[in-house]
């Protein structure tokens, strides 16, 4: 450690988004030359805290100091950069229409003048070589034509590259979510090197192993506050899980659901020439697993289109409903009320004469409100007045309230709190028992415990079908990564 004073000192930080209390008085410190791991359940406030630190949002209360300097109202991303703070945001933030080298220029204003391209190419290539040896990325490729994993590498390399500006702290918000194991390990190694040379890193991840390997200190957040701060060596998996709260409070195990009764013909049949043919029977919950971005969502969409009558290799014999995970772009109708958002998929069913039956929709909406405990005073309120998790419940209600026999779920639990998750798990089991067929794509391996069978995806293809005893975490991970480093 170079100096005793912490590099970053945040105290009493509060942030409210309307009624949602994202941060409720958080104290947070980062020392020079150390890596802080930040963990917590979805919606705990991790990203919000980092957005405050990097100047993207202003806190309602509390203060932020970097290098002993108090940052006042004029603080913004440019100000953060001046203090040597760099961020890799949770959502990718490269410009897809620019090349890799050009994207470096966006975040490094000092690269300019004649010959800037050559300089930018060299800087980003050197950095990529340093962090991810053997990455195979050309600096002149347009970002839109890179795979998600490579985009993530570019973004990480961009954050660590330095031209003239100083670099003190790099914030990595779930940097490994779409990296393969090999690259993730390269990153952890690099973080250790970087820290060893006196830099600082904040690492956010849901992969606890990574956190334990890379961090010097770990901060656990829950419901907008920091609940545990300690040296990394004092933590192990069990303690992390306990401190994060009721995340693992569920006691179900793999194999809890026995995929028994297959009655009647399948409602979805995939192309027969596939090595592992996709089939779905009524009453089943089938999981889609694998690393994110490996074709699971595309498959769900194709099944959905097949159910709408599109011709293709996939055959679906019943109507389908879709629960979007990416609420903002795939789910919400922002000008409408909660009720209208729920019944947009039931326009035909709720017809009285020629007109849509608004009274009946309202009555049914009341039922859904109590069944899913949607927290709002009035289902006639605008959908955006709901917190993210409650918006997600409305999307569940939309699918389950329709008369579709097939329910397709695209990582639907993003932003749903733990209590509700347990309730939703039960409702899903109920729906399956009532003869609905469900497909559930999830990035959380634990959730696959609620499935009868699981298809693992890699590079757009089903590479494994797991059920019964074979359905366990090791097999899922194994199938996801196989041959991945080729």
């Amino acid at each position, binding site marked *: 450690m170079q100096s005793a004073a912490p590099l970053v000192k945040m105290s009493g930080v509060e942030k409210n988004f309307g009624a949602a209390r994202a941060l409720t008085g958080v104290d947070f410190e980062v020392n020079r030359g150390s890596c802080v791991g930040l963990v917590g359940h979805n919606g705990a406030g991790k990203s919000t805290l980092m957005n405050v630190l990097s100047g993207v949002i202003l806190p309602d209360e509390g203060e932020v100091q970097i290098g002993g300097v108090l940052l006042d109202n004029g603080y913004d991303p440019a100000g953060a950069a001046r203090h040597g703070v760099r961020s890799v945001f949770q959502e990718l933030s490269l410009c897809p229409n620019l090349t890799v080298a050009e994207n470096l220029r966006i975040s490094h204003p000092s690269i300019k003048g004649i010959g800037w391209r050559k300089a930018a190419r060299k800087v980003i290539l050197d950095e990529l070589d340093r962090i991810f040896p053997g990455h195979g990325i050309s600096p002149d490729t347009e970002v839109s034509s890179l795979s998600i994993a490579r985009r993530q590498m570019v973004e990480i390399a961009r954050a660590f590259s330095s031209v003239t500006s100083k670099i003190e702290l790099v914030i990595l918000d779930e940097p490994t979510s779409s990296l393969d194991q090999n690259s993730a390990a390269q990153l952890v190694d690099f973080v250790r090197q970087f820290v060893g040379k006196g830099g600082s890193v904040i690492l956010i991840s849901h992969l606890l192993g990574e956190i334990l390997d890379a961090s010097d200190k770990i901060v656990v957040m829950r419901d907008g506050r920091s609940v545990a701060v300690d040296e990394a060596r004092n933590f192990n998996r069990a303690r992390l899980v306990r401190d994060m709260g009721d995340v693992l409070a569920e006691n179900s195990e793999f194999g809890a659901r026995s995929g028994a009764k297959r009655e009647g013909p399948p409602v979805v049949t995939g192309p027969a020439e596939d090595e592992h043919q996709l089939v779905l029977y009524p009453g089943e919950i089938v999981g889609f697993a694998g690393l994110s971005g490996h074709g699971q969502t595309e498959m769900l969409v194709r099944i959905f289109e097949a159910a709408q009558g599109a011709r293709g290799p996939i055959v679906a014999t019943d109507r389908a409903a879709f629960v979007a995970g990416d609420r903002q772009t795939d789910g919400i109708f*922002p000008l409408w009320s909660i009720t209208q958002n729920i019944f*947009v998929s039931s326009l035909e069913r709720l017809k009285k004469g020629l007109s*849509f039956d608004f009274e009946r929709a309202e009555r049914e909406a009341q039922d859904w409100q109590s069944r899913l405990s949607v927290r709002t005073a009035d289902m006639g309120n605008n959908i955006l007045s709901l917190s993210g998790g409650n918006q997600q419940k409305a999307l569940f209600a939309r699918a389950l309230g329709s008369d579709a026999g097939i329910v397709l779920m695209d990582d639907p639990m993003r932003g749903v709190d733990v209590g509700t998750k347990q309730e939703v798990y039960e409702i899903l089991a109920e729906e399956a028992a009532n003869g609905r067929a469900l497909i559930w794509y999830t990035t959380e391996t634990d959730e696959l415990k609620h499935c009868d069978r699981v298809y693992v995806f890699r590079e757009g293809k089903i590479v494994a079908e797991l059920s019964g005893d074979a359905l366990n975490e090791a097999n899922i991970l194994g199938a996801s990564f196989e041959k991945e480093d080729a």
Partner: protein
Amino acid sequence: MTWVSQLVQKPWVWAWFGAVSMWVIITGVSGFGAGGQVMSAAASFGTFFVIVAIGQMFVITLGPGNVDLSIPACMTLSATLAMKFMNGDPGLLVPGFLISLGVGLAIGTTNFLLILFLRIPPIIATLSASFLYQSTAIWSNRGLRVKPPEVLGDFAVAKVAGVPILTLVVLVVTVGMAFLLHRTRFGLSVLAVGQNEKAAKLAGIRVERVRFLTYLMCAVFASVCGFFLAGFSGGAALNMGEQYLLMSIAVVVIGGTSVAGGYANLTGLWGASLFMFLLVSMLNTLGLSAGYRLIVTGAIIVAVIVVSGRKLAR
């Protein structure tokens, strides 16, 4: 008090506010009698704006990039073919009207197919196709002006108690369209697609079918407008639709429909139609020259967007 503040929240208020202001100015300059007469004229001519604007409104509600630029050509072609076929014979009124409808259906379908299969942005697809429609109109009658059957002409200008009958008919149609937009599966689907096309698709709405019906409807309204306008003004002319291109867009937008899609209302269409007619009349009454009239018109359109845009910004 609260109802006032609630009222100014409604995007369509501004159009009506504008219309009333224009009327007050005209009445102030020319007296009360003139005010009544100009209102009756505004109802007559505003009706034609409303007919095309209803279709355009549904199209614009589908979201950014959706706008039908083939309305003028559609009006011309429909009127030309129908008038030529009827050739003034009242007995052929019904088949003549069916021809006009057929033109609308054909043009709507063509527009949609160009957008769907050739993936040309709607704004350019409808513009390019409109040249073809216009050529067809020229080819079919070389611009000869055929008189409409007398009954059609009489119907188009008839009034009861100073109110044009056509206006009453279109008022009823407007109410029907409001029902269609706000209460039926089709209307709600249009609003959903306009808010978030991807989400609409995933919510099970047949987006392309909705788009097809919308462009079809727009063309049919344009062709019907052409039919009655030819009756009203004594025959079809090759340039009869020219004014209706910008007018249909302006009426929709000033009427409070969101160009970002997903929000529409029909009340504003009437306010905006009356407003656009009264604005020109007011400028004529004040005797402003053409240059100033254009500047004032443009400035008012921008001002309305700036004022009503504030509430839509989220």
